[in-house]
């Protein structure tokens, strides 16, 4: 994950202990689910693709299982077997590049969440074909956040504001009595100079944003203005282009918020909102490339606009 | 004193200073980059035996070598700033006002300016003068203790050299 974390926890000494315990748990989860750490469950699974099932820790198993469920719910929009595509584009490395269609189609054949075999009893995971690979980046942070919240709540913490690599998680409200005021990052912050485009008041909820602004191939962007970002559409092998610059989910479950924000971005807001409203435990905000902002029903009129480069639509 | 003897003595002094520098690296620091300044004992000894120029040479060589051997390049800055400033002050006091100060006083003054030099360097590196204000009080108290200790040790060393090795101080 290699993410920057910040913790604001209100409480007494037991709160401090709980905070440290939460940090340790997050590091542990990171070790199990990292795509780069040699001993991680994910790396082991990927190495054994096409060969044999790999026994994993309970938490890894749970996260993979949840991710596959989301794969099904979203009809493949969230697909953790996206790793071969991620590696092909090299977007997390120092040398990202735009691959050819042939290269993409070749790797696309290895992307299919249905080819992941789980053995519930033995807690093993098996990737059916050689060359397949999983990446839990879209969902692991959410799981880690839920664990952190669980640990803090068990210690009696009633008010906290955590930031795990950009995901904002809240427990209770601001100690001064107001709800936590969370800004939603302006996806074109570099151009507008504004940190956020809207503010939302939350309590006991997580706010997760995904967008094309987080990671993209800078060389290409500078030359042609085209953004090849890191949220790949598992159906095409190319960065998702259903017209969104950013998607935000607000939910009391961090793992759901994490998964849904990726799903929303990939599906686009019309289909995405339908799915989210069906699932029912989250609200969403979508920003289109035309700087229009759409929200699900529950958020209508609840967003405080904070910069006028964007238009909040009814 | 004949030249070879002088060079040899300076070499021994510098190596002693290096050892002191190395050892005090193991003592936990009270402030960023700040060390006790035990090596200043050697600065004082050089000052007493030889004079200003030699003392400054010892300081500079000790600082550069000591930091390089310790593996730290920023350390050179801290050592040099502390060492040079304290060396200058000690020289001024020792050479110009010897009767007004005891060795302990001079060493203390040296330790004080050693720390001031290091804090100024830290403030400059970190870009904020607040570092000076925050750590100065603590380091001043440490300087009093170190200074006294340094003075004592210098006194003993000089006495020893004078009596056993018949070196005029």
């Amino acid at each position, binding site marked *: 994950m290699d993410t920057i974390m910040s913790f604001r926890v209100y409480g007494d000494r037991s709160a401090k202990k709980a905070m440290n315990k939460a940090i340790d748990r997050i590091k542990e989860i990171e070790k199990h689910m990292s795509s780069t750490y040699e001993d991680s469950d994910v790396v082991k699974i990927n190495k054994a693709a096409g060969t044999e099932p790999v026994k994993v820790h309970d938490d890894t198993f749970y996260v993979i299982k949840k991710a596959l469920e989301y794969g099904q719910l979203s009809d493949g929009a969230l697909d953790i077997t996206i790793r071969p595509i991620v590696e092909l584009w090299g977007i997390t490395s120092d040398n990202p590049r735009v691959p050819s269609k042939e290269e993409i189609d070749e790797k696309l054949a290895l992307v299919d969440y249905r080819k992941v075999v789980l053995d519930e009893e033995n807690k093993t995971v098996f990737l059916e074909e050689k060359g397949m690979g999983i990446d839990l980046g879209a969902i692991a942070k959410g799981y880690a956040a839920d664990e952190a919240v669980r640990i803090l709540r068990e210690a009696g913490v009633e008010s906290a504001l955590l930031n795990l690599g950009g995901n904002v998680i809240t427990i209770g409200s601001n100690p001064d009595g107001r709800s936590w005021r969370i800004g939603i*990052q302006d996806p074109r912050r570099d151009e507008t100079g504004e940190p956020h485009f809207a503010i939302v008041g939350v309590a006991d909820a997580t706010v997760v944003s995904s967008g094309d602004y987080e990671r993209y191939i800078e060389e290409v962007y500078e030359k042609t203005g085209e953004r090849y970002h890191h949220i790949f559409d598992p159906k095409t092998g190319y960065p998702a282009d259903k017209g969104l610059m950013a998607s*935000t989910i607000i939910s009391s479950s961090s793992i759901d918020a994490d998964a849904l924000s990726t799903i929303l971005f990939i599906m686009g807001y019309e289909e995405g909102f339908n799915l989210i409203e069906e699932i029912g435990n989250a609200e969403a905000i979508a920003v289109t490339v035309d700087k229009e902002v759409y929200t699900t029903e529950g958020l209508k009129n609840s967003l405080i606009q904070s910069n006028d480069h964007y238009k909040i639509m009814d | 004193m004949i030249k070879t003897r002088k060079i040899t003595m300076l070499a021994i002094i510098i190596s002693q200073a290096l050892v002191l520098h190395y050892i005090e690296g193991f003592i936990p620091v009270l402030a960023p980059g700040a060390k006790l300044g035990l090596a200043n004992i050697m600065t004082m000894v050089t000052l007493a035996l030889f004079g200003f120029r030699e003392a400054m040479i010892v300081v500079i060589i000790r600082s550069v070598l000591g930091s390089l051997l310790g593996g730290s390049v920023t350390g050179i800055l801290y050592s040099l700033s502390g060492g040079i400033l304290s060396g200058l002050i000690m020289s001024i006091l020792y050479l110009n006002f010897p009767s007004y100060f*005891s060795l302990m006083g001079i060493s203390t003054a040296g330790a*004080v300016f050693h720390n001031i030099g290091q804090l100024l360097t830290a403030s400059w590196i970190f870009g904020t003068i607040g570092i000076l204000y925050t750590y100065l009080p603590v380091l001043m108290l440490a300087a009093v203790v170190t200074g006294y200790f340094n003075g004592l040790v210098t006194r003993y060393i000089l006495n020893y050299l004078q009596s056993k090795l018949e070196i005029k101080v």
Partner: protein
Amino acid sequence: MDKSMKLKIGDIFVYLFILVLIGLSLLGLKTMGVDRSNTVVQIQLDGQVIDSFEVSQDGEIETREIRVDTGQGGYNIVRVTSQGIAVIDANCPDKLCVRSPIIKVPGQSIVCIPHKFVVRIIGENQGDNAVDDTAS
């Protein structure tokens, strides 16, 4: 070189000098504190911002008093000093605003409910857009 280990007059100067330095540092620490330049104070009546001003010019905080007429004969008097902001007088029935402690930090506010009066400190560039954190 004097071989005695006695305390000499110069030594006393050194120790005094040290005390002076310590004193100066503590003083330096006190005046540093919170950077108050560019801090904006906002006065609201009935939810509307009626006045907004910067607390300091060139790092110096000017002391001033502002009388706010809150309508129907009501008033609150705000005093701005380097110590912070306080409501020093008001003709509301409970005078809770006057009894409120002095505020110094962005985010804090003093409220007078009968007069629908709020005076608050806002960090620079924030105004109503102050957030506790941003999801990125």
